[in-house]
C-alpha cells in the first residue's frame, strides 16, 4: 500500500477508511468488482478487496451478508457472474485442470471439516501431495506426520475421521490444507460447528499460523481471534463490504451505523 485510497464514493464515504498498514509487500489476492446472484438475490455486490502477502484478514458480518460466499468464490467453489479474482497475479480460470492447479495453491478449511470419511487421518493429509504434487508416498507420510504434530494430532494418524472429536477433525483439516504448501489459506467459519470447549484448540493453531506469516482470509464470529491475530477486519452487510479497518479501530470506533448495530448485538452479552 503505497498511497491511501481516496474516498470518491459518496454512499460509503463515511465508512471507508484508508487501509491500515499491513505487514505486507505485494498483493496476493485481488478481487475487482465481483458480483454474484443466487437467483434474484444479489449476494456479492461490486466487491473490491486486496489482500497482501502475509496479511491476516478477518471477514465478519451478519448471517446472509455474503461473507461465506466471498470466501468460497476465492477458489471458485462458488461461481460469480462478473468481475475478476486474481491469485498471485493469475485470474481464476473457469474450470478444468488450470483451475485445479490454482486451487492447490489455496488452502481451504470448511465449517463442517469435510475430512474424507473413507480415508485415515494420515491419508487425508497425504492425498493432495501425492495425487496433485506427485510426491512419493514416504516423503508425503513424513511431511504429514510433521504437520499433524504441528496441529497437535499425534496418536490418531491411523484412525478414521469419525473417530475424532470435532476440534481434532478441524485441526486435521488445517494440516490437510497446509500439506499443499498453499500461498493463502481460506477459513470459512472454522469454529462454528464446534462445541465451545473445542474452539480454542482450533483458534490456537490458527493464531500460530498467523504468527508464522501465513496469508489468511478468515470468515468467523470469533472476535477475540480477530483482535488477537488479524491485521484487518472487513465488515460485510447485504453483499457489500461496508467497512474495513484495523481490529482495534473497528471494534472501538466503528464508522458505519450497520457495523455499530452489529457490534452492539454481539458484544453486549
Amino acid at each position, binding site marked *: 500500500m503505497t498511497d491511501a485510497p481516496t474516498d470518491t464514493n459518496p454512499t460509503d464515504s463515511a465508512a471507508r477508511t484508508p487501509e491500515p498498514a499491513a505487514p505486507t509487500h505485494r498483493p496476493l489476492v485481488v478481487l475487482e468488482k465481483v458480483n454474484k446472484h443466487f437467483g434474484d438475490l444479489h449476494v456479492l455486490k461490486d466487491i473490491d478487496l486486496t489482500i497482501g502477502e502475509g496479511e491476516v484478514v478477518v471477514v465478519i458480518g451478519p448471517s446472509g451478508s455474503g461473507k461465506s460466499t466471498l470466501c468460497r468464490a476465492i477458489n471458485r467453489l462458488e461461481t460469480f457472474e462478473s468481475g475478476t479474482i486474481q491469485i498471485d497475479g493469475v485470474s481464476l480460470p473457469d474450470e478444468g485442470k488450470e483451475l485445479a492447479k490454482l*486451487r492447490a495453491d489455496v488452502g481451504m478449511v470448511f465449517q463442517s471439516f469435510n475430512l474424507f470419511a473413507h480415508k485415515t487421518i494420515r491419508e487425508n493429509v497425504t492425498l493432495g501431495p501425492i495425487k*496433485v504434487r506427485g510426491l512419493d508416498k514416504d516423503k508425503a507420510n513424513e511431511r504429514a506426520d510433521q504437520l499433524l504434530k504441528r496441529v497437535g494430532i499425534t496418536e490418531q494418524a491411523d484412525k478414521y475421521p469419525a473417530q475424532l472429536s470435532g476440534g481434532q477433525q478441524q485441526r486435521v483439516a488445517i494440516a490437510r490444507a497446509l500439506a499443499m504448501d498453499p500461498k493463502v489459506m481460506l477459513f470459512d467459519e472454522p469454529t462454528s460447528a464446534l462445541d465451545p470447549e473445542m474452539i480454542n484448540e482450533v483458534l490456537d493453531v490458527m493464531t500460530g499460523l498467523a504468527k508464522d506469516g501465513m496469508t489468511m482470509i478468515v470468515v468467523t464470529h470469533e472476535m477475540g481471534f480477530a483482535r488477537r491475530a488479524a491485521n484487518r477486519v472487513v465488515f460485510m452487510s447485504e453483499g457489500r463490504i461496508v467497512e474495513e479497518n484495523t481490529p482495534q479501530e473497528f471494534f472501538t470506533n466503528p464508522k458505519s451505523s450497520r457495523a455499530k448495530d452489529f457490534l452492539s448485538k454481539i458484544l453486549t452479552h
Partner: protein
Amino acid sequence: MDAITQNLDLFWSGFLRSLTICLWGAVGSLILGTIIATCRVAPVAPLRTFGTAWVTVIRNCPLTVVLVMFAFGLPEIGINADFYTFGLAGLIIYTSAFVCEGLRAGINSVSAGQAEAARAIGLTFTQSLTQIVLPQAFRTSIPPVGSVIIAMIKNSAVVGAFGVGRDLFSVGESLTSAQGYAALPVLTGVAIGYLMMTLPAGLGLGALERRVAIAR
C-alpha cells in the same frame, strides 16, 4: 425327479453357460453403468444430457424389445454378430441403465462437502470422483446395485430364450418341448439352477456390504 437326475450333465452345462453370461453381464454392466453415472454427474452439460437420455430410453424399454432390436434390427443396418454377442450386449446395455441409477443414488448420498474438499486441495473432477466420491458411493450403492445384478441374472433367461442357446433356460425348454419331459420337474431343476446363482450372489453382497461399512 428322473427328469433332473437323468439329464444332470445337461443341466450342469446349461448352468455353466448361464453363469458365464451372467459374469460377463455383471462385469460389463457395472463398468458401463459407472461410465454412464459419471456422465450424469459430469460438469459438462452435453455429457449429462447423454447420460440422462441413455437412462430414459433404455430403462423404459422392455428387455425383450432391446434384445429384438439387437438380434434382428442391427443386422438390417449392416451390423452383424452371433446371437451370443448380441444377447450379451443387449443385456449389458439394458442393465447399465439400472446400475447407473443405483450408483447415482450412492453418489447423491455423499455429502457435497466431500467433493468440495477434494476440489479445494486441487484434485481434478476425475480425481475427486475416483478418489473420493465413487469409493464412498459404492458402499451406499451395494444394496440397490446388488438388486439390479440379481435381476440381471434372472433376465439372462430372456437372453437364453432369444436364441443364445445351451443356457439353463434353453435346456429346460428343449427338455420339455422337444424331448417330452413333464414341465414341472424340469422347470424345478431350472429354478434350482438360477437359485444357485442368485442366492450366493445375495449372500456375497451382504458380506461385501458388512465388510466395507464405514462410520460417517
